């Protein structure tokens, strides 16, 4: 069972990387959700001046690779005079792209709310903004809980891309351990198990949320 000892020896190295991964998720997720809700409002605006550029930006961001966005921030930030750590470059890029993803998810949710709900809201005297915030959007949010759960898993996996710019997250810590201890690809199998645990946890949490939301649907 020497490989068990071997894995045990790796764990402290992974731990730091794991913390970095968690930090990235912790930073990007709330920002993406909050900004996503804001962006979807812009996307749903009736003024072409607002929704057109928003639509363009969302579609653009959704159709480019995440790693490329990370590179843009990483190489571009110094040009703008800031000395950002790699981890923050990654965080900005991931947060921005996931804002676009989530804005689309929310938009889908809003369009899934039946037209009749709008009528009902207006019938009791609410103005359009009121109808949206008090009647339609809450229902839309409940409808998209599973889709958001999926996006969270995607976000967790996307954090691994900062390994490409040298940020020591869970993935890169694996590469370092491998180079230092002459171990091989098995290291990454252990890393994979770590990610699996993380994503399973996230899915389980969202499962609970789904059950909660289904009752109110």
């Amino acid at each position, binding site marked *: 069972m020497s490989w068990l000892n071997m894995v045990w020896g790796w764990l402290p190295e992974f731990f730091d990387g794991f913390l970095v991964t968690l930090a990235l998720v912790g930073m990007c997720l709330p920002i993406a959700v909050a900004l996503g809700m804001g962006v979807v409002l812009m996307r749903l605006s009736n003024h072409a001046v607002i929704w057109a550029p928003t639509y363009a930006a969302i579609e653009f961001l959704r159709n480019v690779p995440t790693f490329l966005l990370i590179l843009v921030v990483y*190489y571009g930030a110094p040009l703008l005079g800031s000395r950002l750590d790699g981890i923050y470059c990654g965080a900005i890029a991931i947060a921005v792209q996931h804002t676009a993803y989530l804005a689309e998810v929310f938009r889908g949710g809003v369009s899934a709310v039946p037209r009749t709900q709008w009528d009902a809201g207006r019938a009791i005297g609410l103005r359009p903004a009121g109808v949206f915030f008090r009647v339609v959007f809450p229902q839309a949010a409940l409808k998209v809980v599973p889709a958001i759960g999926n996006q969270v898993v995607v976000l967790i996996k996307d954090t691994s891309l900062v390994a490409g710019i040298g940020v020591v997250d869970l993935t890169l810590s694996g590469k370092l351990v491998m180079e230092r201890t002459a171990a091989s690809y098995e290291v990454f199998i252990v890393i994979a198990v770590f990610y699996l645990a993380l994503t399973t946890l996230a899915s389980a949490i969202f499962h609970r949320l789904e059950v909660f939301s289904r009752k109110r649907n």
Partner: protein
Amino acid sequence: MDIAFLSINYLLKAALVTVEIAAATVVLSFVIGTALGVAAAIGGRTIRSILTVYVYVVRGVPVLVLIFIAYFGLPRLGVDAPNYVAATIALVIYFAAFVADIVRGSILAVPKSTVEAGLAIGLRWTQILTQIQLPLGMRLALPPLVTTASIAVKSTSYASIVGVWELTYASREVVERTLAAFEIFFSVMVIYFCICYPISLCATYLQRRHAAV
């Protein structure tokens, strides 16, 4: 933007490599995935469980980790393959799972009543599969499959992290040489966009046509 124009040749050559890798990934993963998906739809509990486990693992692990496993693992298994082969193998394993899950779900989503109509005129199960479940199931599967293809194209950029020379890697080279980060990367993003956006439009169009079968 002059820098962008000067490098455009270089970048377009790299874009071609990206398209090649993407095409290989899409074709192989779709073939394998469809076979697996059909097997899981009609097969017994064993093959269904295998697929469930496979999809679960692939869903929960980053593509990059799979690429690393393939990149460092293949030499250890005695296979001396270039880095783009390792990357492509990892991508194929990754996307075949999604394709299989989509195909399986779509075949099973064909309404039971349509299948019963086939049974009522005396069709046998093999005929039901080939005449009803597969044609109708694949129509349902097309929109999510096209979306998966678009994601696959974007994922090729992760191969650059293990040194595969494709569009992202080339763009990094140019930026490090010229420091014109925004112009170069913006141009490259436009290239990726021009490949992926039409694909996603296809998916939306297909979704509208075959939404209700």
